[in-house]
C-alpha cells in the first residue's frame, strides 16, 4: 500500500503523466485484487478490512438462505421442464417458487417480462412489491414479486361473461384476446390484482406521439405474434401473466425465471415429485399469498 500511495502522488505531480498514472493505478488495483488471492492471503486481508470498519469476522452462515444442492438450478429446471413436456398436458401442473430471502428487488424479472411480452404502459404482469418492516435501527425490507398466482381455484374465470378466460388443463389461466369483450369484471375478481387492462397507451404517446420501434414488434404471447395496433386486440382486453407458455412449450423457462439474477425464482412441474419446485415447496418455510381466499395459488414463496 505505501508503494501505491507513493506512485499515486508521483503521478499526480504533472499533467502530462495522467495517462501514466491511470495505467499504474489500474495495475495496482488489479494486483491488489489478484495477488493476495494467488498467495492465499484473502482471509487476512478481509479480516483486516473488517477490523478497520469495526465489524467482526464471525460469519453466521445460518443467516444465509440454504444453498440448493446438486446441479445448477437452471440446468435442473430445464431438465424438469423437458421431462414435464414429455407428459400429456393434463398431467403437468406448472408452478413457481419465489425465494424472498434471495430477491434483491432489482425488478429484473419485471423488465424481462415487459421485454418478452412487449407490454405497453399500464400493463404489468410481475410488479415487485417492497415491504418495510420495523423502525430504525431494527428495520428490514423485503421484496415480493407478484406474478399471476395461476390459482387452482381461480375466482377470475367463472365471472367472465363470455368464457374468454379459463384454466388450462396444465393449470395456467389464460385469456383469449379475440373473445374478451373488455368488461374487466375479472380484474375486480382477482384478489391479487394480477390482471391488467390494456387501455391502449403506447410509450410513444409520451415521446411526441411517434410509435417507438420496439412497440411495433410482435408479442409472442400465446404463440400468436400479435402486433399491437390501434383498437385491435390486445388493446381493450384484459391481460395477465401466463408463465410465458409460449416459452414453456418450446422448452424454455419463463423470462422472469431465467432473468432472475438472485436466482430467487424457480419454475417447474408441481406434479413431478423430482422437480426442483416440488422439492422446494416441501419445506416448512413456504407460504402463499392470501391463502384465506381459498384460491389455491400455484405460486409459492419461501420466507
Amino acid at each position: 500500500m505505501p508503494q501505491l500511495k507513493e506512485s499515486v502522488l508521483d503521478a499526480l505531480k504533472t499533467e502530462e503523466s495522467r495517462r501514466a498514472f491511470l495505467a499504474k493505478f489500474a495495475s495496482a488495483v488489479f494486483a491488489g485484487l489478484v495477488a493476495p488471492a494467488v498467495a492465499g492471503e484473502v482471509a487476512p486481508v478481509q479480516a483486516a478490512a473488517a477490523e478497520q470498519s469495526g465489524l467482526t469476522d464471525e460469519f453466521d452462515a445460518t443467516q444465509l438462505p440454504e444453498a440448493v444442492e446438486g446441479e445448477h438450478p437452471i440446468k435442473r429446471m430445464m431438465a424438469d421442464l423437458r421431462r414435464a413436456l414429455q407428459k400429456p398436458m393434463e398431467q403437468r401442473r406448472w408452478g413457481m417458487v419465489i425465494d424472498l430471502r434471495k430477491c434483491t428487488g432489482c425488478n429484473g424479472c419485471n423488465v424481462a417480462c415487459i421485454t418478452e411480452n412487449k407490454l405497453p404502459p399500464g400493463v404489468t404482469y410481475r410488479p415487485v412489491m417492497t415491504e418495510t418492516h420495523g423502525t430504525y435501527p431494527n428495520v428490514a425490507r423485503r421484496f415480493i414479486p407478484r406474478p399471476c398466482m395461476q390459482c387452482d381455484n381461480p375466482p377470475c374465470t367463472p365471472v367472465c361473461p363470455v368464457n374468454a378466460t379459463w384454466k388450462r388443463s396444465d393449470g395456467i389461466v389464460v385469456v383469449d384476446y379475440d373473445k374478451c369483450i373488455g368488461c374487466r369484471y375479472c380484474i375486480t375478481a382477482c384478489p391479487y390484482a394480477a390482471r391488467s387492462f390494456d387501455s391502449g397507451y403506447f410509450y410513444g404517446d409520451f415521446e411526441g406521439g411517434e410509435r417507438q420501434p420496439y412497440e411495433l414488434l410482435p408479442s409472442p404471447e400465446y404463440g400468436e405474434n400479435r402486433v399491437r395496433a390501434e383498437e385491435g386486440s390486445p388493446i381493450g382486453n384484459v391481460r395477465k401473466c401466463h408463465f410465458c407458455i409460449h416459452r414453456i412449450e418450446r422448452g424454455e423457462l419463463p423470462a422472469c425465471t431465467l432473468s432472475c439474477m438472485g436466482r430467487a425464482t424457480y419454475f417447474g412441474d408441481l406434479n413431478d415429485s423430482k422437480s426442483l419446485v416440488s422439492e422446494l415447496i416441501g419445506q416448512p418455510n413456504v407460504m402463499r399469498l392470501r391463502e384465506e381466499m381459498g384460491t389455491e395459488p400455484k405460486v409459492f414463496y419461501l420466507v
Partner: protein
Amino acid sequence: MKPVRVLWILTLVGFVIGLVGVFQRVIGGHTVAAYNTYVPWGLWVAAYAMMIGLSVGAYLVAALAYGFRVQALKPVAPIALFAALATLAGGLMAIWLDLGHPDRFWRLFLATNPTSIMGLMVWFYTLYGILLIALIVLTQRNSDAGIVRNLSLLGLPLVIIFGGAEGALFGVVSAQALWESGLTPILFLVEGALSGVALVLFLSVVLDKATEDAVRWLRGLALGLLAAAIVLEWAEISTALYAGIPAKTASLNLVLFGPFWWVFWFFHVGLGIVVPALLLLFLNRRTWALATAGGLLALTAIASKLNLVIPALVVPEFEGLRTAFTGTGLTFNYFPTLAEWLLLVWIVSLSALVFLAGVWWMGRASVQTPRLTKA
C-alpha cells in the same frame, strides 16, 4: 315556460355538449378515461348501476298500476313505463361504451357463460326490454286488458331478479371486501326501487300528469323505501366498522372521511336522504317540494353507486402495489376525466330524449288525465 319545454331544452343542450365526450371516447378509446389496471371500473359503471336501479323502481310503479290494479297509480303508469325503458337504455348504453370491445357485445348472447352473473344479466335485460316495449304498445291500446295485467305481473319477478342480480354482480366478488356482502343485492334492489319511484314522482309532477292519489301513493312508497334503505345501509356500515375487517374498513373510511367525503355526506346523506325526507314528510301538500324530493332522490342515487364502486377498487390488494410499478394506467387514484363526465351527460341526455320522445308520442293519443290540485 312549461316545465316540459325546459326539460326538452336541457336535454338537447346536454346531448350536444355530451357529443364531445362521445367523440373523445371514439377517437381516444379508453385512454381518455381515468379507470385503469388497478381501478378498472369508474363513473360509467356507477352510472350503469344507477340507471338500472331507476328502471327497476319505475317499473315497480307500472306493475302496481297495471298488475295489481292500483287505480291511484294508473295516471302515472305510462310515465313509469317510459321512464323504465329510457333508463334501461341509458344504463345499457353506459356499460356498452365502457366495454373494451363494444363491437363484441354480441358474444354476450352467443357465448354466455352461465356461471357469470354478468353473462346472465344480458338475458334478463333483453327479456325486460322486450317486456317493456310490449307493455308500452299494449297499454296504448287498452291498459285494462288481461294481457297487460299478466305481463305486468310477469315482469315483477323479473325486475326483482335482475335488480337483485345487479347487486349480486358486486356482492359475489370476494376479492372486494366492500362489495362482498349478502346485503348488497338487497340494498341495490331497495335503493333502485326508491330512486325509480322518486323519478316517477318527479316526472309526473313536472309533466303535470299526477293526481293527488298518485302523489300520495308515490310519496308513501318513497318514504317507505327510504326508511328501508337507511336501515339496510346503517346495518351494512355499522357492522362492517364494528367487525373491523381491514380491507372493508379501509374502503368505508374512504367513503366517510376520505378525500371525497362530501360525496357521502353532502350528496348522499344531505341531498339524498335528509332533504328529501324533510320535504316528503313536512311539505307534502306542495307540488314543488314533492318534485324536488323526487328529483333529488333520483339524481343522488349515483352517489351511493359511486361510493360502492370506487372506494372498493382504490384500496390496493397489497399496499406494496401502490409503489411497485407505477405510471400511466397503474395508479390507485381515480377521479373521472372530463371526457367521462361529458359522456355521462350525453348518456343521461339520450335517456331523457328517449323518455321525452315517448311521452310526446303518448300524449298525441292519450286521454287527458285529472291534474293534481296545487296547494
